[in-house]
């Protein structure tokens, strides 16, 4: 005959094991679902006050190999740096949605944007570059989208330099040049040609 206290001990152990198992299963289940909730990781624009303004986003489309202009309504801060960040974050938020025509990695964000005599310096975070797909066209579309969107909403910007985590980098993911400055006029011409070619 098994003593009563042993039975209770085993019952408690068994219950603890079952509860632990269930808890681990729940954690695993949540972890599996995490990538599907990428929108939770999308960048959040800084708080701002005032009336919403219309901004222009240039959205990349992988299938057509072109950028499409789209207007969005945003409440923007008055500070140019925060304003540029808010615009780029709105752009990146579109790319991190589930049905994005040009997916960017979860966690992609802009660390900072600052302006020096007509040159905009965009500092991307590490997740943006390290998780980016590699390929000439896919990288080009990302870079052109960032540059053209920034230029369309920040008048006076003539050049754009892209950094990753505050550091210079040779390419985005093996192809698109990040070592040089992007000339806004040249990018504008290329974006126009791409759009024209894709609509033919």
């Amino acid at each position, binding site marked *: 005959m098994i003593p009563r206290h042993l039975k209770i001990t*085993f019952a408690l152990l068994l219950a603890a*094991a079952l509860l632990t198992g269930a808890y681990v299963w729940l954690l695993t289940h949540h972890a599996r679902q995490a990538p599907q909730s990428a929108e939770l990781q999308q960048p959040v624009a800084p708080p701002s006050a005032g009336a919403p303004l219309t901004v222009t986003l240039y959205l990349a489309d992988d299938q057509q190999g072109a950028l499409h202009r789209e207007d969005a309504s945003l409440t923007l801060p008055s500070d140019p740096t925060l304003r540029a960040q808010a615009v780029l974050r709105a752009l990146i938020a579109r790319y991190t949605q589930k049905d994005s025509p040009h997916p960017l990695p979860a966690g992609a964000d802009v660390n900072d944007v600052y302006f020096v005599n007509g040159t905009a310096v965009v500092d991307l975070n590490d997740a943006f570059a390290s998780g980016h797909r590699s*390929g*000439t*066209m896919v990288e080009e579309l990302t870079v052109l989208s960032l540059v053209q969107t920034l230029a369309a909403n920040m008048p006076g910007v003539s050049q754009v330099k892209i950094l990753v985590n505050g550091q210079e980098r040779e390419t985005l993911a*093996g192809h*698109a040049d990040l070592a040089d400055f*992007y000339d806004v006029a040249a990018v504008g011409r290329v974006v126009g040609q791409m759009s024209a070619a894709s609509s033919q």
Partner: protein
Amino acid sequence: MRWIDLLRARAFRCSSLILWGVEIVRRRKTGRAREIVRGRGFPPSHHRVAPALALLLVLIWPPQPQPASALQRLSVYASRGSFTVPVEQNAGRDYVGILDLLDPLGQLSARQDGRKWKMRFNGTEVEFQDGKSTVKVGNQRVDLPSPFYFQDGRGMVPLAGIVPLLSLLLRQPLELHESSRRLFVGEVAVRFTAQSVHTPADSVVLSFSAPVNPSIGTEPGQLRMTFAREPLVHPSPSTMSFENKSIPSLTYREADGVAELTLSSSVPLLARFSPDRKTITVGPVVEIVAQAKPQPATPAPTPAPAPAPPSAAPTQPPSVPPGQQPAPATAAPVPSAPPPVVVVDASHGGTETGAALSDTLAEKDVTLGIALRLHNDLESRGLRTMLLRNSDAFLSLDQRAVLANASRARFYISLHAGSLGTGVRLYTALLPPITPASGPFLPWDTAQATFLSSSQTLSGSIAAEFAKANVAARQMYAPLPPLNHIAGVAVAVEVAPQGTDVSQLNSPAYQEQVAAAIAAGVARAQQGATP
């Protein structure tokens, strides 16, 4: 296997120990602990319940992640070719699957008969027994240093015992380097000599007894050649010293199934292969490029050489990845030879794999495959061609631009591959609207500006050839290095599949179709440029 038995035994033992401890504590209170210690044990009911409870606990307990162990392999070099087989660890010894080992070497069949495992190799009967060290080979017996065993239907033999076993089966001389896991079957060893030379200055010439194809990497102060498929064996001594101020020594070592040659250096080094791939000349980058740079027997088509890059880094050479055809190697041009007309640059290489086109297909391999075909097609059209890499070697973007500009070739074709979209995309440099520089020097960052118009003409010419071949082609601008730094007519070609099947990129027929169209486009541009 026996994992369930092991689990059951451990569960029973754990549960017994727990219950035993609990019972001792309880009985100590009642003064009866000694009875249990003397072997009285538990009442029979404990034996029935405890294993079941313990097993239940073990089964529902979340498994702990096991650290991944490094995959170990044995490299086998035979006259039929080189291959590797996985090495397993058992009781502290290295084991290999006998079928993995023998299958590439001859006719093989095997069957299991209870605890016996019978095999027939090239007409010789071999009989193993699970857990036994003695093997019957025909009428003879071979003693292995540790027992044979089954694992997942594979017969495993100790690595240390394969030489006497294979000697009877293969009837060829065998040499096993057990510590480095390399097995030589027959007289296959490749030997080499190394000699310091003065032309090119401060260089070392490595001469091999057979063609070799190492992968090459550089680190500060050294250049390392890794021979994964070549049965390279060491000279004596394994470290050589040279009267050479740039390359003072060379070291041979072998480990983990590969052989390595390491050249220590005080300057950035470049390696260049001879056409027969039996000779590798390693020397300072400046000396090797200077020797490769042809004399201007004909006026160079480019108006001026490009300036040196901001920082020169060590360069590397070639080795063909498994599955690729032997490269039509880049011959070091003789000093009196005219410059190449075309430089073909297979993008990426070495540790820089480019885009992952599929789980098994890397961009660097596709670009190399197309580059090799393009080289042949251009040469067959009478256009002298230089491949920047003809093997799985890493070159930095600046090195590619420097080598292309130093060659003074008229055309530069950079090859890329992608899984996005369909057909082919032809890129020319994305440059700001600037006035092309004049004079003897070109700015490094905008060296392409002078040639942009000609580059667009070449792009159009190639696009027209793709149209003839019914391959969709699109002309675009791209911020794609090193196009901006090329002082010549430069186009980058990104090849995508024609449909959704990415494996088409690795298809010889598609690669040849792409290469032929590019070659035809270049030839047309060359004819148009020739008065």
